């Protein structure tokens, strides 16, 4: 279901300014994300990746600028419109943010109960399916978040983000703290979901392997705006000093080599 070129972007950010007190996070930031794309937001610590994500998902009101989700302006919209929009995207928080008093199945069922009028048994079935889709064993459904390991927590949180079959998925550091095998499986899962569901995925990540494996385009944040926005192959060629510093370190080179054995003089 990847839309042909020329369709309006799923996310369109124009002239975004955000501030915490007197600290300017973003100044005149523009960003377009097309349907069916997997886009990563990268940048050094404190470059405002998570803040941009929070502004897009309406958790943080920008000082100025406009943000369109599904062709609808979200800055300053009403409660009902917000509720309808929230039905169409899922968010995976950095720490999982699972409700600690609920089991994994109940956690996944929360958005389903809130947004659909399905009977409880069917909701439980769908919740179990999402848990399976996220790559968890069926037994995890009846566990409480505190009984799960870090990697399982991430997957359970992904299951909740996927609960409503959203068209748009936000991931905040999805592979941070995962072992390489789980992280790789997570990337595969994102790609698989994108291809079969036509998902648009926006992720904040520092995982260079994820950037190579899973993304279509990468937006590099720095100097309070997007200083580079291109597929990884092109982005690493960018002469901008911040981008060079980010990708030219030993880790960056190693990830490049792993993904493109032809490059980097190898």
């Amino acid at each position, binding site marked *: *279901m990847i839309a042909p070129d020329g369709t309006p972007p799923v996310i369109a950010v124009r002239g975004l300014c955000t501030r915490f007190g007197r600290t300017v996070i973003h100044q005149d930031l523009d960003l377009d994300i097309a349907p069916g794309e997997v886009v990563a937001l990268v940048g050094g610590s404190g470059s405002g990746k998570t803040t941009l994500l929070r502004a897009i998902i309406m958790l943080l009101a920008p000082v100025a600028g406009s943000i369109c989700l599904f062709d609808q302006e979200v800055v300053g919209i009403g409660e009902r419109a917000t509720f309808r929009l929230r039905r169409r995207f899922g968010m995976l928080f950095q720490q999982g943010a699972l409700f*600690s*008093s609920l089991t994994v199945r109940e956690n996944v069922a929360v958005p*389903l109960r809130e947004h*659909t*009028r*399905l*009977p409880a048994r*069917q909701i439980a*079935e*769908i919740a*179990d*399916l*999402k*848990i*399976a*889709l996220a*790559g*968890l*064993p*069926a*037994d995890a*459904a*009846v566990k*409480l*978040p*505190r009984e799960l390991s870090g990697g399982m927590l991430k997957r359970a949180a992904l299951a909740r983000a*996927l609960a*409503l*079959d959203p068209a748009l998925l936000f991931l905040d550091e999805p592979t941070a703290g995962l072992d390489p095998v789980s992280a790789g499986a997570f990337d595969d899962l994102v790609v*698989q*979901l994108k*291809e*079969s*569901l*036509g998902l648009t995925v926006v992720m904040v990540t520092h995982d260079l392997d994820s950037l190579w494996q899973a993304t279509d385009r990468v937006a590099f944040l720095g100097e309070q705006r997007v200083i580079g926005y291109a597929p990884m192959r092109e982005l690493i060629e960018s002469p901008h000093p911040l981008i060079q510093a980010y990708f030219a370190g030993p880790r960056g080179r190693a990830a490049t080599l792993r993904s493109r054995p032809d490059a980097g003089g190898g």
Partner: protein
Amino acid sequence: MTAQPPSPVGITPAVVEIGADGWACAGAWTLDGIPGLEQRLAGLPAARCCPSTGSGRTGVLPGSVRLDTAAITALDTSGALQLLKLIATLEQQGSRVHLHGLRETHRELLELVRNRREAAGALTPQIKTENGLVRLGQATLLHLSSGFLFLSFVGEAALALARVVLQPTRLRGRALMVAIETAGVNALPIIALLSFMMGIVIAYQGGRQLEFYGANIFIVELVSLTMLRELAPLITAIIVAGRTGSSYTAQIGTMQVTEEVDALRTIGIPPMDLLVLPKLLGLTVALPLLTLFADALSVFGGMVMAQVMLDVSFQDFLDRFPRVVTLTSFMIGIGKAPVFAAIIALVGCYQGFRVRGGADSVGRQTTVSVVQSIFLVIAADAVFSVVLGGVGL
């Protein structure tokens, strides 16, 4: 066809129809389209599930079924689940299912859902056969063990205190000062207001009776002794239990959740030394002072009421006050405060360390902390009354 239930605007509900040459699925097989699908499926006659053979009503019919999915306009994972369930039901009835007209993207999605469900395996059923008696026993054991755990916590705190007494440099001075400020100084306004009002209430209620007998001047004994000996220490302790004890539990509990307590241990700071002792010592200092403050304000409240209602002037009140209030009564009131303080601080900290898991546990232990400390404070007060009465004070 059965009547279609209302659906969100622009969504054609998922339907299954039985045609001449097999089954046909149509509509949006998505989260918005599937409500009501199960009822519609249940409404289909079981015997007709294999129209090609069309015989009998046993529902276990051999043969193959053609499932036409070309008219499915949209499919998501929830819809795929329903489709897989339909296929599974048909297969259970002994038919081989042939899918027709499934789009490539939909086929991929169906495969993804099928594979992931298989990979997840089946849920092992939880066996829960606990009757009331078992639960009663478990609850009893739990309460007994938590009593012992609290005693061992008190013991640990006492040992830590002994270490500090032997080696005073271990005491965290700054944490102690912060504890005194937050539990003591910051509580002054609320203590002032509430004890002033308590003084007014006691004087008003008692004063009406005294006026009746023309014994107005005895308002001094009434207010002063009630307040200094009993009410001021108790009210102060209860306010502090609600205000400070709960914050101790919430703070230590949240630190427990975010692994800060473990971080302290790995750095080599015993949590007892940093988190418990300063609070225990700080509150033991602050609560008697707060009680003294409450004594003064509540007697002042009584004085105001005596002046307004009983024509007992401030001068008369203060003349009589030192003659009727003995040092013993005053000291008994103040002397209870450190005991109450120890109860509040120990219960608050202990419940904080009992927090396991996340936010809901913090809330639960905070409630338990406030209820237990108020209960124990009142119980201790009762013990004081009995014991002090026994020795004739």
